[in-house]
């Protein structure tokens, strides 16, 4: 699961996969702005076949929090 999420984040943000870790957050990445965040959310929804609530979207501000939400939704182990 971790690799799927991390590779998707790297692909959407167009940053090297090796720089992705759970602590990586929106404020750490210049290109990870509001518009890019929505693109990331939509990509996650498409990949994992779910629709995230607005409240969940707001909390998904880092790679680690993204993984937590997906795990809570049962989308990943």
């Amino acid at each position: 699961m971790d690799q799927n999420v991390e590779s998707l984040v790297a692909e959407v943000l167009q940053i090297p996969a090796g720089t992705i870790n759970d602590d990586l957050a929106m404020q750490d990445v210049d290109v990870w702005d509001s518009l890019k965040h929505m693109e990331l959310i939509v990509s996650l929804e498409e990949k994992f076949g779910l629709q995230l609530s607005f409240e969940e979207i707001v909390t998904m501000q880092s790679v680690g929090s993204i993984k937590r939400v997906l795990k809570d939704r049962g989308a990943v182990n």
Partner: protein
Amino acid sequence: MVDSLIAKEAVVAVFDLNADGLGELAREQPGVHCVQCDVSNHADVVMATTLYHEEFGAADVLINNAGILYSEPLIRISGSGVERHDPESWNKVLAADLSSVFYMTSCVVAKMITTRTRGVIANISSVAASGNAGQSAYSAAKAGVNALTAVWAKELGPMGIRVVAVAPGFTETDSTKEALSEGVLRETTKRVPLRRLGKPQEIAQGVVSVLENDFFNGKIFELDGGLIV
């Protein structure tokens, strides 16, 4: 426009400044929710949309149809010399025709996003966006509406919200007759291959068609009878 939407079984709310017009609409169409609101005033829009959302929840279609048609050349040469376009009129037209679109859309879309509501924003533009002599403010506003349509389609498309525009040509409305002289209307009609002005119901039909077409996005649908500029 309201009639066309109701014919499609839409639940319609109309935001308008004109209380008398709203009263008449409410009598003719009791099912329509009428809200008096100056859409050119940001505070008014925030209050009216907040109350609307509290009662009805998120809308799935917004049609930005409010606006005023205004003609004034940049410079007039008169017996007393040169007169410049009235800046107050400029501000008023930009507020009514462009800022209103921005205010209403930002409030309505914010609610759509927080509720993950998919839908359509339809902006009523005009062929004047390409630049009509004598219509600095109106043309600038409508060109701005076209730009907002393109920008928002790119921003909101991934969230399932289409943004489209319909650009009527010269249409048989009271505002057209008030803004343009008979001579100008006559000359304009000659430039339409169909040799007539558009009818309001034809414009409404165009709006409904872009609302219904789920692949039409970010573009301007020109409804002008083939007007030759």
